[in-house]
């Protein structure tokens, strides 16, 4: 029996109706009685020492209730962060990056808050800042973080935050076996998330509790952070996390919630801070990188060694950037069998926006370098670019990264499918070129997801879980699992998320984990119900539990088949009630693993591009864009395509047009929507094909793997390769704007 909306179908998105009627409530749509409007006080400098903050005039503005400055905060300045507690509530004596908040105003109206912000007088001294890798590494450079903030760290007296070393084998010993060695450097610029919903926060003190609303992806992490900062029990911090209007990693970790919490506690009133789009540029970005790849190959194109150095330029505070850099560097050699690998990664502090998770988690930057260098090697060796990739792919089950999860898919199928869809061997028109690239990213390395499913007496169900549905469609997929396992139509299922007082703990929503980790948890909650239903059936029918089978919404015994709901209704009797199932999915730390955990699965993608280049203007037209992912099982094919195409187009953004531009003083010059360009409907490839390989070989329910990042990993190198074939140009920096391509053409002639 298959209930409507079961696994493998594409029912209407759960929450979709509210999204097309305007009823969906995002944080900024929620108002609290007696709320105050908050605005941030900032200066237009990349780095400066704060001499004084005078709020006298600002306080005179009618309606102003509070101007919070560092002197109103505990001493020393409270700090927080997901990896290091280095981010202060407000700038601590020094503005360390453009837009770092110095003070904040809470007023009865937005206008009053704005007016007061303009009247706060900040006296400051502009300091020289470091805004690039080279500037940060200059031995004479000022330190971004004071050494006292990072005692016991080996690089505390430099701007290097952390070094990571991974790999296997001895390069020196094998170097001689390579017939061909190539070394290249590739750069990847600063880009930002640009979720259409800017970050928004509200905090309301209520009795001995704080209620917090945030656009955050990880409500339980926010709860922990605030509990520690404010010395409150978790039970007294209730986090509401309405479905975010796009996250992409930029909403994973706490940002300004602690500041707003202090403001709410000081005033005793709800305080609301809605960021502008411009301010989000000063809140989140992707780490820019310089990656040096040295590859050794045989004349046949077999990889001998990969020696990679990755430099990630992070911001003034670490946020999750160290994890991004180490996790991505760890898979720098990509989805290939490489006998010897040496990876040296660094994070480098700078006076720029703190960098954080961003779809692909550091991997797109490295993939750009590795895949382009591999193409250059293929050209040098005279080997077909598809062939050089195919011959180095590990077979399924091969432990291509020693000590980690073996290759968990038949990746050659993916590559062949993409090659077929792009017509790799077909003749090319004049002015056109093709490129192909592979991307590989580790899924989650740890995880903990609890869930509760309540099967109600009328055959409807409630699902409680801490996942955030920010567009990936978790509500739908989790409902589908319940529909499948309870045999009830999806319309009778509600998913409750985003309230830490109601839903059980979930570690986080990141790394394409929801279907696999929370999906497994919900599946197990359903199995828990199955067990209870089996006991009911046994009691009602006087049979041994061992002779009763419960599966996929059906109870079977001695020739009889009954829907679960029927058994439950009989079992519950006249008092009614419900059957409650709990699920848990835990992926513990592995202390001996370099990342403290092996990959739950790999996200593997092959992207192939055909592009045309205008030889007068340098404009690139994407003629055809093919992305194929190894998804295990598509629990909801429509949503798989939505994620895959969305990631592909986002990838075209950083490939073709996106870049944050700073001036020499570290000020971001293109904040907002006018001069930071993201793809519109008019920038789509002439043809975009998203396909997937399904072998039901993932660790998630029904063999699913995570899918939301793959097609973004290798967009840039595939486009770069197509441009090279069309023009003969090798461009080693992004984005491939018309001007950059034109400049390269001009240098070539």
């Amino acid at each position: 029996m298959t209930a409507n909306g079961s696994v493998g179908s594409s029912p209407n998105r759960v929450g979709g109706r509210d999204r097309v009627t305007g009823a969906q409530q995002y944080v900024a749509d929620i108002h609290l009685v007696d709320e105050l409007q908050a605005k941030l006080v900032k200066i237009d400098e990349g780095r400066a020492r704060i001499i004084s903050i005078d709020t006298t005039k600002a306080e005179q503005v009618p309606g102003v209730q509070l101007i919070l400055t560092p002197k109103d905060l505990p001493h020393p300045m409270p700090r927080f962060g997901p990896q290091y507690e280095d981010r202060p509530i407000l700038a601590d004596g020094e503005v360390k990056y453009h837009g770092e908040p110095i003070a904040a105003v809470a007023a009865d109206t937005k206008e009053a808050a704005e007016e007061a912000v303009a009247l706060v007088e900040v006296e400051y001294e502009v300091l020289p800042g470091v805004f690039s890798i080279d500037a940060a590494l200059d031995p004479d450079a000022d330190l971004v973080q004071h050494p006292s903030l990072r005692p016991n760290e080996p690089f505390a007296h430099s701007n290097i935050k952390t070094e990571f070393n991974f790999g296997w084998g001895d390069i020196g010993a094998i170097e001689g076996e390579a017939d061909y060695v190539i070394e290249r450097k590739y750069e990847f610029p600063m880009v930002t998330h640009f979720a259409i919903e800017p970050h928004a926060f509200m905090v309301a003190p209520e009795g001995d509790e704080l209620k917090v609303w945030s656009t955050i992806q990880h409500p339980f992490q926010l709860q922990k952070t605030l509990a520690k900062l404010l010395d409150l029990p978790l039970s007294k911090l209730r986090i509401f996390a309405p479905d975010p209007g796009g996250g992409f990693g930029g909403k994973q970790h706490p940002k300004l919630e602690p500041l707003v919490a202090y403001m709410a506690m000081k005033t005793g009133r709800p305080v609301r801070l809605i960021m502008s789009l411009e301010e989000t540029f000063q809140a989140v970005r992707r780490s820019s990188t310089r990656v040096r790849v040295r590859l050794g190959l045989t004349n046949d194109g077999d990889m001998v060694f990969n020696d990679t150095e990755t430099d990630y330029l992070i911001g003034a505070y670490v946020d999750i950037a160290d994890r991004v850099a180490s996790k991505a560097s760890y898979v720098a050699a990509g989805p290939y069998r490489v006998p010897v690998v040496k990876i040296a990664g660094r994070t480098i502090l700078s006076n720029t926006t703190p960098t954080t998770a961003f779809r692909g988690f550091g991997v797109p930057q490295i993939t750009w370098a590795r895949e382009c260098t591999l193409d250059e090697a293929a050209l040098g060796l005279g080997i077909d670019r598809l062939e050089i990739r195919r011959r180095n792919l590990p077979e399924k089950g091969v432990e291509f990264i020693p000590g980690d999860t073996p290759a968990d898919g038949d990746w050659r199928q993916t590559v062949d499918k993409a090659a077929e869809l792009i017509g790799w061997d077909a003749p090319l028109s004049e002015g056109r070129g093709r490129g192909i690239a592979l991307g590989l990213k580790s899924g989650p390395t740890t995880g903990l997801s609890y869930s509760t499913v309540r099967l109600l007496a009328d055959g409807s169900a409630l699902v409680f879980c801490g996942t955030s549905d920010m567009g990936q469609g978790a509500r739908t997929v989790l409902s589908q699992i319940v529909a499948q396992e309870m045999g009830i139509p999806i319309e009778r299922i509600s998913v409750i998320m985003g309230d830490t007082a109601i839903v059980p703990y979930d570690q986080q929503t990141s790394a394409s984990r929801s279907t696999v980790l929370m999906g497994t948890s919900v599946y197990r909650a359903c199995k828990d119900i199955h067990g209870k239903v089996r006991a009911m059936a046994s009691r009602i029918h006087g049979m041994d539990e061992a002779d009763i089978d419960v599966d996929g919404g059906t109870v079977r015994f001695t020739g009889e088949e009954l829907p679960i709901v029927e058994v439950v209704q009989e079992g519950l009797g006249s008092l009614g009630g419900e059957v409650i199932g709990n699920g848990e999915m835990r992926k513990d730390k592995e202390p001996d693993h370099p990342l403290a955990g092996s990959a739950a699965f790999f996200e593997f993608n092959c992207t192939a591009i055909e592009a045309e280049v205008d030889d007068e203007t340098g404009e690139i037209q994407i003629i055809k864009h093919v992305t194929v992912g190894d998804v295990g099982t598509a629990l909801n094919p429509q949503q798989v395509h939505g994620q895959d195409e969305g990631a592909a187009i986002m990838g075209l953004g950083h490939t073709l047009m996106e870049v944050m531009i700073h001036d020499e003083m570290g000020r971001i010059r293109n904040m907002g929507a006018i001069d930071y360009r993201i793809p519109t409907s008019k920038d789509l490839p002439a043809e975009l094909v998203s396909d997937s390989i399904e072998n039901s070989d993932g660790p998630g329910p029904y063999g699913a793997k995570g899918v939301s990042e793959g097609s973004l990993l290798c967009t840039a190198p595939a486009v770069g390769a197509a441009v090279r074939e069309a023009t003969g140009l090798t461009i080693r920096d992004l984005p491939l704007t018309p001007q950059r391509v034109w400049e390269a053409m001009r240098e070539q002639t």
Partner: protein
Amino acid sequence: MKEFSYERPESLDDALRLLAASGSEVEVLAGGTDLVIAMRDGQSQPKVVVDLKRITEFYPSLMWAGDTVTLSATATMAETVDDEGINKHFPALAEAAVVVGSVQIRNRATLLGNICNGSPAADTAPPLLAYDAIIVVAGPDGTRRVEIDEFIVGPGRTALQDGEIAVALELRLPSRPLGSAYERMTRRKGTDLASVTLCATVDDAGITRVAFGSVGPRAWLRTDESGVLADPDASDEAKAAVFEEIFADATPSVRSLRASPDYRRAMLRVLGARAVRRALRRLQELQGVS
């Protein structure tokens, strides 16, 4: 946004009186697509905003009479783009107006506002220069008619004086067959501010006019009377020399985020050649018809 008082006159006289009474602390509002942003940013902090959209004299916004089309201060980009006559006789204007912002912007932004705003990158400035548009200006002392080349002064500056309103824009049908085309360079195919804007016209006497913007403080109009650009048989070198002269005054900003000066200069030549080619083709089509 700072506080201001809002006025909505129903006659031009009333509007002019309001302007006269408010001195320099007044802004006129037509489409508002630039003004509202400026007021929100605090770049503009008027005491009074005078909304022109209820002034009866401004309707109909677009009117043909004889050989002249008059677009009033309330004529939007969308109305300009949708007009058959504009598309037929002033195709480069239609091509420029249709790339100003998005549909939402074009439903609000006015053609005159695009010129009065004084942006060097205004898409419609090059075609209006090339078509010799006349701006009708009303003020306390009556009405004057200003050639657009005189009207455009520099970044954010026009020939408008305090107390004056640009009430209409007039275009006269070309006196002889004229082919024309508009080209622009942007960072993406979707809505974007142009790093080069350019309009070329070619008439049946072989005179080519090239108007271009976004590469200096204002859009310029230049003429090639030698006939070289319009000559299909002229060499690329000869044409390049003419373009060299035409674009001599281009001074693209080194501070711009949108493109480098070198790139802009190079694209002037590329777009110039493209626009002239398309204008010639249109001229030939016209001549084929007549």
